[in-house]
């Protein structure tokens, strides 16, 4: 049995390229599809449009895409959307910033010292297991109902995935590299910079993907408290009033933000992890 592989076969070569060994055997996912990442969301949009057009999706529960577009237009015209979005983006950005620093720092302490881990890890798991809403009274008591409380709550939400993923990534660094670091007598600082952080980077970046969406999700919780602006506030208000179209605008916005921020982190991932050769390549 002889198979022929013609990878960009020379036209001068006499033997015909009968079958491609590569495509025949290929177990990996194959070549990337052009605009692949847009296909799923577009499909979703198509189903939604079709459902709305045929009346299969009840307009009063899930507004039609065109309703969402007009509602968005109205919201933008009245300035509500931009104003709310701006406030929310500021809160999330601040919370994200603090959360990432806090999470990474704690992950380093906990990952590189048994005592750090003993003290930090348990409480983080507990924090993670407790619903954010249930923690609100305590946070209100300690931090008031102003911006400080809002940003702190987002920070507390965001630091968890950063911590867990970085810690997990860090703990998973091959001990051979740690041995190497020891034999070249790396200082602890250099060890962290050269071995730990790059080694934990894949984990950290996955954590970032969660942190970004977590930030937005916590917004919905904190913007119920003493807010008069913000996307979460806008949606919560629409929910109490039963304004389906505004809720759906909010959902679409959330979906877009989710897609975009996830895409951004993945882009960074592809750059930062360009040294990796994996199944995905």
């Amino acid at each position, binding site marked *: *049995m002889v198979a022929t592989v013609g990878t960009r*076969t020379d036209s001068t070569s006499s*033997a015909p390229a009968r079958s491609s060994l590569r495509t025949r055997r290929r177990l990996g996912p194959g070549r990337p599809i052009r605009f692949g990442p847009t296909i799923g969301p577009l499909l979703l949009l198509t189903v939604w449009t079709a459902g709305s057009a045929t009346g299969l999706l009840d307009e009063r529960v899930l507004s039609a895409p065109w309703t969402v577009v007009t509602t968005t237009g109205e919201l933008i015209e009245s300035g509500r959307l931009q104003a709310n979005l701006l406030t929310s983006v500021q809160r999330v950005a601040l919370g994200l910033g603090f959360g990432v620093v806090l999470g990474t720092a704690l992950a380093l302490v906990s990952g590189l010292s048994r005592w750090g881990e003993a003290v930090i890890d348990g409480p983080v798991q507990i924090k993670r297991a407790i619903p954010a809403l249930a923690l609100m009274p305590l946070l209100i008591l300690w931090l008031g109902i102003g911006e400080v409380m809002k940003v702190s709550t987002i920070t507390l939400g965001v630091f968890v995935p950063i911590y867990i993923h970085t810690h997990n990534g860090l703990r998973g660094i091959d001990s051979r590299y740690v041995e190497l670091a020891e034999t070249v007598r790396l200082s602890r600082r250099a060890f962290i910079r050269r071995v730990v952080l790059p080694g934990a980077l894949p984990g950290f970046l996955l954590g970032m993907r969660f942190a970004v969406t977590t930030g937005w999700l916590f917004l919905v919780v904190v913007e119920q408290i003493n807010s008069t602006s913000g996307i979460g506030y806008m949606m919560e208000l629409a929910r109490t009033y039963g304004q389906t179209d505004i809720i759906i605008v909010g959902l679409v916005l959330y979906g877009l933000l989710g897609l975009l921020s996830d895409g951004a982190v993945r882009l960074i991932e592809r750059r930062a992890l360009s040294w990796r050769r994996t199944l995905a390549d």
Partner: protein
Amino acid sequence: MATHPGGLTTVAPAVRIAELTRSYDDRTILDSLDLEIRAGEFVALLGQSGSGKSTLLRALAGLDGEVAGTGLIDVPGAVSVVFQDSRLLPWLRVHDNVILGLTGPGAAEQGRESLAEVGLAGRERAWPNQLSGGEQQRVALARSLVREPELLLADEPFGALDALTRIRMHALLRSLCDRHRPAVLLVTHDVDEAIVLADRVLVLDGGRIAAEQLIDVDTPRNSADPRFAEIRAHLLGALGVTGEPREPREPRERSRD
């Protein structure tokens, strides 16, 4: 069928490579390389570090899809590869690594036998990272020998083995060849090893086959044989090593310090 090993022949070869070009970025590694290997022929491939031996093997194994290049490659369907790194799956125990992909009721037993042949009986349940370098290499060898390939591509399969173990592995490889007569392309850095094992030795340089040497030494091949020494000198010359005496070590003043 022509009985003369190597050389131009009109019989359908097991492996046929024509005008194979492969480049990484701007560096052309293989440059319009032509090569044929007959069924049952044992070819050894020498070449400097970085000359493209592994690149050639990967192309033959169909593993260079992402690499830029042109050319024609004809290989049999059943190819077995020993990678330069032993490439054991770290999450499978040694025995499972050996029988990876084998099906049928006899697989487990075959795997055990194969491990015993490479001197690792009793280590079936070890994890790969619990093995020494040479042991890992032997597991990889066992994995490729337990299959019955029509083409065996082996990338320095004996590099981490001591002299005695190496001789044993040579014997093992030879007995496989005698049983199933696969075409073999063996990359090695040991010129003597190449001469002992191969029907034909190639030297890769500048992206092409820069030298080709039929091994017409009588078996059993003895490195003391003058023809052996002659071929060795010729091959070493092709590899850029001139003069058998190794470069002298600077005399060291042992009483200083």
